[in-house]
């Protein structure tokens, strides 16, 4: 894998990560560092392991029956896979937004946003109110829903639901936010809104986003990693990767010769 100058003080660092589904080796020896307050994109053809790798970053991979992994993932220097570390603690610090928006249908918009806090036992109404407003503003959804916070989370459009999920993930103020193809199920306008959002978000959060859409990666990310068959082929500043990629395979992919 080719990579330009190393990152000092990365907030998230993967070291020789392998991921398996039973015997199938889905992610092969990936080493990657993420600088704080950046947007990092992961691109590659379908089935190349980028989503699987993403899920090893917040210990969601192990929730699948038969799934295992090897290696280390360091959050601010601490290995999240160290013995004795509770996955629950990891996931509170590394949030995730999924491809298909999944607000809880039995909760209102308000309740959806703060569910992370209410689970933690926060009951103070004024605190919750403040977090709701802050998170929804952060997700560029406040103005659209501020008058209907009591309505069920699923009463919104697809793009709004996804922003609701982003607000929900942000409400617990995680240092890192993982996004698994967040706009692939949305219409172009919602997609554009969320892309704008990503650029804004990196002031407070470090974002790692898996995307199928190369133009999106080029637009929003600072660094991009190109995945192929479970390996990282190239990991580079986005401006460089998309204009003068170092690896032939990267060039083939971004010029549309496959995938």
């Amino acid at each position, binding site marked *: 894998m080719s990579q330009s100058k190393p990152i000092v003080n990365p*907030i998230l660092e993967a070291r020789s990560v392998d991921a398996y589904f039973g015997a199938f080796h889905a992610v092969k020896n990936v080493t990657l560092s993420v600088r704080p307050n950046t947007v990092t994109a992961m691109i590659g053809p379908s089935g190349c392991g980028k989503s699987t790798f993403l899920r090893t970053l917040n210990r969601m991979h192990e929730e699948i029956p038969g799934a295992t992994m090897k290696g280390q993932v360091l*959050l*601010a220097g*601490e290995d*999240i896979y160290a013995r004795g*570390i*509770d996955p*629950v*603690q*990891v996931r509170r*610090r590394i949030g995730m937004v999924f491809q298909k928006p999944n607000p809880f249908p039995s909760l209102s918009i308000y309740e959806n946003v703060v569910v992370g*806090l209410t*689970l*933690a*036992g*926060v009951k*103070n109404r*004024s*605190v919750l109110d*403040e977090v709701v407003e*802050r998170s929804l503003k952060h997700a560029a959804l406040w103005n659209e829903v501020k008058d209907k916070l009591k309505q069920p989370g699923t009463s919104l459009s697809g793009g709004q639901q996804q922003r609701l999920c982003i607000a929900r993930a942000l409400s617990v*103020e*995680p*240092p890192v936010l993982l996004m698994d193809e967040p706009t692939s199920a949305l219409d172009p306008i919602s997609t554009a809104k969320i892309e704008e959002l990503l650029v804004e978000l990196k002031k*407070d959060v470090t974002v790692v986003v898996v995307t199928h859409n190369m133009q999106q990666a080029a637009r929003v990310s600072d660094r991009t990693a190109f995945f192929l068959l479970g390996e990282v082929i190239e990991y580079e500043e986005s401006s460089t990767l998309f204009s003068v990629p170092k690896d032939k395979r990267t060039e083939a992919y971004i010029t549309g010769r496959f995938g």
Partner: protein
Amino acid sequence: MTSATSTVSPTSGSSRPRARAVSMAQVSYRDIRRKWFNRFMLGTLGVAALVAVLPLISVLYYVFKQGIAGLNLEFFTQLPKPVGETGGGLGNSILGTLTVVMMATVIGLPFGIASGVFLSEFSRSRFTYTLRFCVELLAGIPSIILGIFAYALIVVPMGGFSALAGAVALAIILVPTVAKTTEEVLKLVPDHIREAGLALGLPRWKVILRIVLWGSRAGISTGIMLAIARISGETAPLIFTALNSQYWPHGLLEPVSTLPVQIYTYAIAPFEDWNRLAWTGAMTLVFFVLIANVSMRLILRRKA
């Protein structure tokens, strides 16, 4: 909560639950409490499973422990003795159950299979919705009500209790059970098999009988066996249709002793000898029902 690397929060707020703690070594009291509450609740789920399974174990244990004592050839071949005399058996009840169940199957099976086939193969008919609804309702009727029906239908005009009346009541229980499993099994047959038969020039009825029904015979037989096992254990509809008797079955139009009814009679009686016979009878019944269920399930699993 302190943190190793803290970042400035956008808004102030002393009542905020926490700042952006990154270090996972910092675990709050609340987190610990959540963790232990989680373990506790998951534990109670496991306990619930244990509690749910205990009655089964207890019933099986007692039935076999108490019943095995009276298990001998006499039990299967002899009539019950009068009160006070030891020995005797429930041979008449076992024979009676076989008789009544066989009659009920003969009466009910054609209707059960026919309606099951109808529901599966002619599901576009207007009548289908009504039929399915009726089958469901019939299945939900308490079996004792079916006893009253059989009483009114047969016992009253005939002027007496009979095995036939009991068989009719049991047949009505059999029909919806068989209909539902037959429909389910037939629906599993993919449509292209039917199309293949039709394409060969076979009339629809032959396709259904020779190909679809015949091909599903394992599943259907299983359903029938399970239904028979079920009606063998039914007591309520027999109490005032087939009634009971202390003699060998002597006619389809006469009262007959059946195992469940006899178990009931002997269980509530204050005589120890009778209680003992009840246990052995229960053991026989449970044994039969369990074997039927377990073997049918194993057969289904092997096919799948």
